[in-house]
């Protein structure tokens, strides 16, 4: 049992009420805050606030706040599980509430980079452990016994020598008055009873019965609906607006323009917005506002060159060919090694822009008063949104409250809260509570896309098939895709990494597993060809490289732990029966490290009636301790389906700045009939503190898929989406 000093984020463990006076407390009377399922114990008569994360009822019921935004990654269940574990309470006596943004009580209330569990881990454990300790001390005082003689189990305190017991609820009020301990003991992971067990999504019952949970479901007294109209093309802006016809339509309150990035705007990193200057329609109902939006007469003008996909493709290719850049990493003498190589393999890969397409389109509620503002909605970065809103409204941050709703998907799109800023400005202008709603078309054509990428790989083999030099040269819109210190850096004697960036007026942003979502697939496809040229099994080939990185690493440092990397590859080899080929099953393998976790995958493709279909994906994951295995598997499965889907089918292309895909009729997302028939996930059990899980399963599956398709069809695929580059085979599912 480790004793942990509690000074880290100590503020969070002080009694919540001690801090309540400082901030602005607005009443949230919102259905989504209510517990999903009635608790077994029933509701208590009184609650005792123990710390920012939890309160305990006099009947022993515990409310645990989930600090981070929930985008479908299931942190609203798994973060409270960590608190409950250290508190030592029965999970069925826990109800969970989404915490509002509160930077006094919580740190890093952000959903991004697969970091919620990893970075929350210690603080959440301490929250539970300090509370448990305070309960123990309260019981010790009541019984007048040394606290060391007390034990806990599932919400019950027991005095071993006398056999007396007290429930947490019996001492909760006393515990609230106990000073926060200076240090506390954390459980040995071997004693965990909640962490490592599958607990169902706490919002599950509300989801399957259609309860209001999402931002789009927000309803308030006197609330108006707002929609925006942004320019039809990247590079265009508003020239003039004739609002008369729209204003005259039934149910319309007002039509005007806003500037969401005015002069002097204190721009945050999260303020990515290609169209800050917008037309706004406000009215009483969504359908009426939509009709008025369609009746708008707006003249647009060209402010910067209108780009087409052909321009992006040519621009990236030109950069790869002749762009000048300092190496991001250089080991040995790559040029000389390539000159003396027996074989040089060179391949170029590409992928298009992608939209996030969260199934719930962008939306936000705002109620702005002269001296304060209340915001509510789906946002991955509430802290940054509050700064941006404070800046555009000219209000101090402590006069702005932000409550997060459950999000109908994030994938990185809701890191960029322009819609929240817009909702605030609109509410300020119309002096009424407003819900801003994007149509699917507004959402898909608004930008903040996964950038288009290209990368050229070169590998040099000596006459015995050993990899002696490796060169990666990537380019992307608003930043290249290369991670210079990732594999195979450290495993190859002569190594060169270069990364180039193409400027554009199309806005880009983080999209699930940024950069990795392209570069992993390309790299793993390339290594497959290199292994083939070297005459080696693709797993053996990679394992040899990991050996080198482990035993005799090249260069000063690299990002990954080669032993854990090799570990997942060996695990998937064993589980998938890689060494025992099965007739008719074409297999591809990949391994990748990102978000501090390691994933290796084998994809099995079978061809039926000329249609290659993913029959099974085998996936080995090393993300340290798995908090909630069932939910973790769900994330892994989702990442795999997402990766396969986008690589196979999706693209966002432009003609003269206009996105060609505006809705799901032309933007293809993977559907039921195209999903793998089976996914099996294996977690490495190593007791290491947890690392990322929401993203790491996505990037490598693109490589494993392409490698399997290459064996199934005889075609190497270099350009995504594969559906347009695969010749002579059908990749379509049956249509419903």
């Amino acid at each position, binding site marked *: 049992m480790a004793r942990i000093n509690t000074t880290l984020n100590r503020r969070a463990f002080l009694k919540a009420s001690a801090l309540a006076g400082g901030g602005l407390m607005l009443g949230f009377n919102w259905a989504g805050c209510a517990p999903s399922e009635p608790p077994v114990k029933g509701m208590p008569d009184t609650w005792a606030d123990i710390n920012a994360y939890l309160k305990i009822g006099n009947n022993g019921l515990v409310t645990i706040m989930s600090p981070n935004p929930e985008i479908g990654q299931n942190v609203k269940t798994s973060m409270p599980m960590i608190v409950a574990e250290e508190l030592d309470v029965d999970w069925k006596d826990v109800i969970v509430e989404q915490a509002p943004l509160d930077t006094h009580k919580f740190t890093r209330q952000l959903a991004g980079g697969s970091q919620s569990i990893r970075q929350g881990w210690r603080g959440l454990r301490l929250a539970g452990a300090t509370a448990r300790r305070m309960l123990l001390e309260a019981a010790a005082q009541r019984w007048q016994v040394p606290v060391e003689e007390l034990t806990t189990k599932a919400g019950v305190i027991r005095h071993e020598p006398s056999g007396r017991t007290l429930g947490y609820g019996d001492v909760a009020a006393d515990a609230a008055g106990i000073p926060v301990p200076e240090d506390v003991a954390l459980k040995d992971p071997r004693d965990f009873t909640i962490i490592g067990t599958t607990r169902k999504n706490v919002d599950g019952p509300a989801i399957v019965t259609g309860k209001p949970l999402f931002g789009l479901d927000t309803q308030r007294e006197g609330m108006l609906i707002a929609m925006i109209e942004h320019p039809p093309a990247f590079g265009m802006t508003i020239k003039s607006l004739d609002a008369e016809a729209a204003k005259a339509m039934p149910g319309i309150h007002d039509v005007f323009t806003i500037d969401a990035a005015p002069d002097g705007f204190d721009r945050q990193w999260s303020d990515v917005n290609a169209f800050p200057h917008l037309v706004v329609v406000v009215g009483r109902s969504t359908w009426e506002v939509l009709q008025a939006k369609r009746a708008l007469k707006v003249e647009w003008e060209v402010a910067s060159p209108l780009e087409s996909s052909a321009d992006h493709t040519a621009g990236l290719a030109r950069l790869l060919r002749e762009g000048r850049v300092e190496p991001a990493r250089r080991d040995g003498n790559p040029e000389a090694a390539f000159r003396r190589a027996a074989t040089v393999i060179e391949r170029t890969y590409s992928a298009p822009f992608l939209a996030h397409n969260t199934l*719930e389109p962008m939306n936000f509620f705002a109620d702005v008063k002269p001296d304060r503002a209340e915001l509510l909605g789906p946002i991955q970065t509430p802290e940054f949104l509050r700064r941006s809103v404070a800046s555009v409204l000219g209000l101090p941050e402590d006069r702005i409250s932000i409550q997060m709703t459950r999000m109908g998907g994030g994938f990185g799109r809701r890191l960029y809260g322009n819609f929240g800023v817009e909702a605030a400005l609109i509410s300020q202008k119309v002096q009424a509570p407003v819900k801003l709603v994007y149509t699917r078309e507004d959402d898909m054509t608004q930008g903040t896309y996964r950038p288009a990428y290209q990368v050229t790989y070169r590998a040099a083999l000596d006459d015995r098939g050993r990899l002696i030099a490796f060169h990666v040269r990537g380019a992307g819109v608003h930043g290249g895709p290369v991670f210079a210190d990732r594999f195979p850096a450290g495993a190859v004697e002569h190594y060169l990494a270069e990364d180039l960036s193409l400027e554009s007026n199309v806005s880009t942003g983080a999209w699930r597993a940024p950069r990795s979502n392209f570069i992993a697939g390309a790299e793993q496809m390339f290594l497959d060809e290199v292994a083939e040229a070297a005459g080696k099994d693709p797993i053996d080939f990679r394992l040899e490289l990991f050996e080198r990185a482990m035993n005799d690493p090249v260069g000063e440092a690299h990002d990954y732990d080669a032993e854990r990397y090799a570990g997942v590859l060996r695990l998937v080899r064993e589980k998938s029966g890689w060494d025992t080929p099965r007739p008719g099953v074409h297999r591809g393998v990949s391994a990748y490290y990102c978000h501090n976790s390691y994933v290796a995958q084998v994809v099995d493709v079978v061809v039926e009636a000329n249609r290659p279909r993913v029959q099974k994906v085998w996936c080995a994951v090393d993300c340290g301790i798995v908090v909630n295995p069932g939910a973790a598997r769900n994330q892994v499965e989702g990442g795999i389906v997402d990766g396969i889907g986008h690589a196979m089918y999706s693209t966002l292309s432009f003609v003269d700045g206009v996105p060609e895909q505006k809705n799901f009729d032309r933007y293809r997302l993977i559907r039921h009939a195209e999903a793998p028939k089976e996914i099996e996930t294996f977690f490495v059990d190593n007791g290491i503190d947890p690392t990322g899980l929401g993203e790491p399963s996505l990037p490598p599956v693109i490589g494993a898929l392409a490698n399997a398709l290459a064996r199934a069809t005889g075609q190497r695929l270099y350009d995504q989406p594969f559906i347009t580059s695969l010749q002579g085979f059908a990749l379509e599912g049956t249509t419903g």
Partner: protein
Amino acid sequence: MATYTLTVNGKQHQVEVAPDTPVLWVLREHLNLVGTKYGCGIAQCGACTIHLDGVAVRSCTLPVSAVGRRAITTIEGLSETGDHPVQQAWLEHDVPQCGYCQAGQIMTAVALLQSNPDPSDEDIESVMNGNICRCGTYLRIRAAIKTAAQRMR
């Protein structure tokens, strides 16, 4: 504007809306039944799926004037206490990730099982293909439908 009498989840409601208003928005904004979701507005994603006399339809492209006397069922009315076998199977398999598509998925699945109590994988894929899950829960949906089918037989 016109007045329509709609039977929704067994209850009659009067609404005054423009005849071309999609049932989706009538449900969400006039009847405060927000379980039926907006995802695309063009009958491509299935998030807005409801039942019209037991048949799964996309409410985003169904004008209120076209409903007539047919009975509307939404996710809120699928069962009294949320214990329809399909809802239960969804919980058992812990299907949802973000959860946004799931009401539509469930409504399509219920209609599928009503017309085909023992669907094959291919039947499930073909009927469910109109419902997008952006989070990729397709495998769990298929498993949950099979569990529900077993229970309902």
